């Protein structure tokens, strides 16, 4: 099971954090800080895995962003890399060649996509199409509501 996922920039700025284990805020911050430092200190030649405390850290850099997952001991590290890649593909499809700024300015969307891919720390959907379909349907639901509200405001409804 994934314990948490962090997205951070090469400058060490946190861009997204998803926790599937309950930790006090203080501890989360401490873990985040330590982990960002550790991962950023690693050289590009090094492998993507890191034994860190009692978890396995699997990380991968895509352009300026690091995607970093904390997995439990019995999890398949290579599969976690595939999971990260799948998430990146989804972001890419959704935003259309995604960049760090997309995730900064639309961080809530990045969360929504992750929540359609992973639930409670486990993968819930292996079809890209299904994930994007669910996201699109929910975005549409929101838009319907706004149109609805706008029409109400102008008195058309």
């Amino acid at each position, binding site marked *: *099971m994934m314990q948490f996922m962090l997205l951070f920039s090469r400058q060490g700025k*946190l861009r*997204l*954090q*998803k*926790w*599937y284990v*309950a930790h*006090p*805020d203080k501890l989360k*911050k401490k873990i985040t800080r330590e982990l960002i430092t550790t991962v950023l200190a690693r*050289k590009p*030649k*090094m*492998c*993507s*895995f*890191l*034994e860190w405390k009692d978890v396995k850290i699997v990380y991968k850099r895509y352009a300026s962003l690091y995607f970093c997952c904390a997995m439990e001991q*019995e999890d*398949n*590290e*290579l*599969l976690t*890399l*595939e*999971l990260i890649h*799948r998430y990146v593909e989804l972001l890419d499809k959704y935003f259309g060649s995604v960049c760090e700024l997309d995730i*900064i*300015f639309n*961080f*809530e969307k990045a969360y*929504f996509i992750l*929540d359609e891919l992973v*639930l*409670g720390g*486990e*993968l*819930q*959907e*292996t*079809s*890209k*199409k*299904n994930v994007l379909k*669910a996201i699109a349907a*929910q975005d549409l*639901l*929101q*838009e319907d*509501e*706004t*149109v609805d*509200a*706008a*029409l109400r*405001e*102008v*008195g*058309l409804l």
Partner: protein
Amino acid sequence: MNGSESGFNPAFNIATIKQVVNEAIERVRMPTPTRLRDLIRQIRAARTAAEERSVVNKECAYIRSTFREEDSVWRCRNIAKLLYIHMLGYPAHFGQLECLKLIASPRFTDKRVGYLGAMLLLDERQDVHLLITNCLKNDLNSNTQFVVGLALCTLGAIASPEMARDLASEVERLIKSPNAYIKKKAALCAFRIIRRVPDLMEMFLPATRSLLTEKNHGVLITGVTLITEMCENSPDTLNHFKKIVPNLVRILKNLILAGYSPEHDVSGVSDPFLQVKILRLLRILGKNDAEASEAMNDILAQVATNTETSKNVGNTILYETVLSIMDIKSESSLRVLAINILGRFLLNNDKNIRYVALNTLLRTVHVDTSAVQRHRTTILECLKDPDVSIRRRAMELSFALINGQNIRSMMKELLSFLDRSDAEFKAHCSSAMVLAAERYAPSNKWHLDTLFRVLLKAGNYLRDDTVSSTLQIVSSAAPERQAYAAMRLWSSLERSAVSGDATEKQPLVQVAAWTIGEYGDLLVSEASNAISMVDEDGVDDFVRPSEEYVIDIYQKLLWSTQLSINTKEYLLLSLAKLSTRFTTQPSQDKIRVIIDTFGSHIHIELQQRGVELSQLYRNYAHLRPALLERMPAMEAPASGPEARDDSDHDHDLSDASPDHKPDQVADALLDLIIGSDSLTNGDVDHKPSQPPASNNNSSSNDILDLLSGLDLTPTAPSNVMNNNVSAPAPAPAPAALLLDGLFATPAHINTPVTQVDLPTVTALEKNGLRIVFGVQRGGDTVTLTMRANSSASSTLTDFLFQAAVPRTFQLDMMSPSGTVLPPQGEITQVLKITNPSRSALRLRIRVSYNVDGVPVLEQAEVSSFPPELFN
């Protein structure tokens, strides 16, 4: 505002409506892009941390005020801003209740952001999170699948045990939903609920099994995940699910055989995520179960042979397959196949795959060493990998592969690894090398050479116990080997003294000092020419040093400000020993001058040592040759490192007093008997009265006898005496004084007595001698006060009390109150026994004394200690 202005325009047309709607969307859309975007831009525009803080503080103040005013129109947008601020690391707990309000709103937009906020801000340690339970319950019953989805997602992320109990039945109902979107989310929710509250598993069992009959991969993978969790949760459930093995095999087979399906394809592999999950569940089901294993053998072989290996995905599946093959009761051919897959992994260009291979080989090396051995060269190559994680794994694996046949080549590789490895590896690597060398050394010479090389390359990272174990090996080697050791170590010592890197190699200096002190005469004698010093590269660069040059090097080292006190103690005592090994007058004078200068050394320990050793040139000169005799061979310590740790400190002490040997000799005994520590305290005083044992065989026998409980005839002690003709009979009193000074360590003397008194135990009552133990308890430690009373008519002289405990105990003996026991008199001695294992105490004692000139020896075993001693 815009809306109302252009509201009821009689000439309204479609274009106007569109414009109005678009404007409204822009304005109301969640999160209102302008405002959230603006905030993010403002924050990003901040050039300093202080500037950023002020922007954030201002915004937080504003958000708080809108929360206070119960502004529900902009709540959604404000929470979104707050979540961004939270990600930057600022406190955002004041948004928790607002998230709950959003969740309770009927609008999907509000709910979506509200639940997102709840997942990010709520902490199950706070009561607020309980308030969400009711909202979740409502939404789990919603008609909109996405609302149900949001609620399930939130529950899966932040379910606390209370929430899990309250909502389990809702989740169970949703698993049975016909809607795959809800079904898969509910299954993972159940997975989290069981994680948090394993008791709740039962209720999910019926609904779970049917998940595997679905076509939808989302439902399948979540179902497999849930079943895996259940199987790991209880052995009963594991048995219950054994019958699904054929279903799983079928699903897996369909995945492999089915043609290209764009929906689930990943670089030519059909749904690797699902395949891996199934393989893992198969592993759990097949473990220790021949029948289940049999049922999956074929499919595992099929996956292992048919999976495309050019991409990471394929290797992911192979990796999982290998793990499963190794874990279940698979056919041996399948196991070979699995190890070979790992062998191929080792050659892969992708470092991640090499890492995984090493990791897995490490797990399986104990199951099938010979198969892993075949990949030894590849593994050794990985020692040179640029990646530290890979090097660490390769090192561990290399040590696991060492055996009697390959020790020479493996050690060569590991030595060069040790040489260039990072500091973090050196301690572990050198200890493991010392152990491996001890275990598989093909010859004594090789063993010594290897140890010296490790000493040279590991430097100060070497663990302390290596020093003492190396000394032990040198001391028990054949004489020409000892000379060889002295010569080799001399070369290294000289080299580091001259190049000035001795500070980084203190263990080497210690070993060299001890060895040269003991065998210095062999080092400088002509006889050493006969010993070949040709090293591995065929070079013999040994130059026999002059006595004075040796002393010059010693002086250089002793004068160095950076060597530790411990190392200097070794050097100083070694130097004192050299005074009896070296023969020329100038070297004698030099030694004396150096030792004398230590009489005023700033460090108390060295000063004391300096003064004491100077005394051996003055008042007690007659004792010097005997005290500085060569140490007898030490026996190999059979004990773990904990026993060795402190013995290391004692070596240098014992150097000065060969008449101590009886205690120091038999290491195996040491743990048992007096414990190496005994040197620093008590029984020393008796030694002068015992014949100085220059013959170590008899003395070690002596002790062995005590331990092994052999019949010890009274002739044994006299044997010891007969053997000692070389040493002059020392006057007991001054020697005792001197040695007292040498060995007393104040730490042991005043021990505060805050312990529980227990009844006394009589240990021995014979010929008018009565020995009882007063027992005091304090935690793991028991303090025994030995009281020897005599009712005999004559005075007992040379009274010596010795004790031995089983190996799990540690024994510490204090000084006795005396060695002469007059009629009706009393001698006391304190014994401290540590018993970490808290087992019943057994004590073997031996008492020797002279009565009317006749030596008497008594032995006894005492096991009648009160049982509450260590409870």
